[in-house]
């Protein structure tokens, strides 16, 4: 039986003096997970890692996203991308597909001062939880030091 439609992608980055600096990762329903990171300006080469996680990992990822209720949110009142950069969170979950785009968020102060603090807070914490998971997966699988 084919898996339920599911896809997650997160991007955070900016164009600056050192070119395009960013972190991006994605998960597919079949477990394929990719991570790309170009944060080290002294290092020409991009870090690009691919791995396949088990169905249990995808199930846990779905739980984290479902529990966050991020699919109910909308980015139309969130701060727009700016010179500091932008973040993107794309999630396909069953027949719902969101592709949120907003500015980088430094801390909860930025969240509280925004026009939609409740929604942005959901995004803010979910992104941190997802990054935390991905960094653990990368660290344990590759033993590289993530940013």
């Amino acid at each position, binding site marked *: 039986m*084919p898996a339920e439609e599911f896809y997650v992608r997160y991007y955070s980055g900016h164009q600056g003096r050192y070119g395009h600096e960013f972190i991006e990762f994605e998960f597919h329903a079949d477990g394929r997970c990719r991570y*790309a990171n170009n944060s080290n300006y002294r290092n020409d080469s991009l870090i690009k*890692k691919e791995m396949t996680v088990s169905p249990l990992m995808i199930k846990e990822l779905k739980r984290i996203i479902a529990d966050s209720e991020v699919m109910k949110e909308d980015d139309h009142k969130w701060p727009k991308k700016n010179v500091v950069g932008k973040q993107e969170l794309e999630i*396909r979950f*069953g027949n*719902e597909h969101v592709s949120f785009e907003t500015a980088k968020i430094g801390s909860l102060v930025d969240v509280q001062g925004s026009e939609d603090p409740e929604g942005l807070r959901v995004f803010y914490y979910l992104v941190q939880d997802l990054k935390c998971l991905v960094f653990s997966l990368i660290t344990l699988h590759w033993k590289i030091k993530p940013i």
Partner: protein
Amino acid sequence: MSDRYEIDLNVKPGDDLQDEEMAEAPQAAVKRKGRGFQSGDQRGDGVHSSAFDKLNSSDDSASGRALKSIEGWIVLITGVHEEATEEDILDRFGEYGEVKNVHLNLDRRTGYVKGYVLVEYEKFSEAEEAIAAMNGAKLLDQTLTCDFAFVKPTNNDDRGRRGLTTRGRGGYGGRRSGRSNSPTRR
């Protein structure tokens, strides 16, 4: 969930969709939301690019579908109680071999355990035994589910290039407008 498949209305018949998909896909609209769909940015250097590093299994059919990580075997445990501690995990999972690494990640909002743990064993047999013994076991009154965290890719290497090949298209790429463009990965 009944709306398992979708056909985008702006995909023309025969437009890169495989026959079996057309046959089994009921009409179901996908609800879209977010500014990312309007943004026309295209990047060729991120996850949609090519040449990603991978760890390959070194011909070890004994480990089944599990894939060895760089230093050992990573076991994922879900259903972990929010008040579980690293000591709880080491106590229970240390029975099957020395736990080389534990990642007990916390919920960034609440500060409690997020609900999963990743542990590392040096040997496949230790990880396998831990999974067999602890899958379905209870910790602080919650039932655990255990499995390997990393597996070998299910198909051949071609799959990595195309993304969801059974869907006929790579990725979803919300920043591409609609579905008019082919994926940028090779």
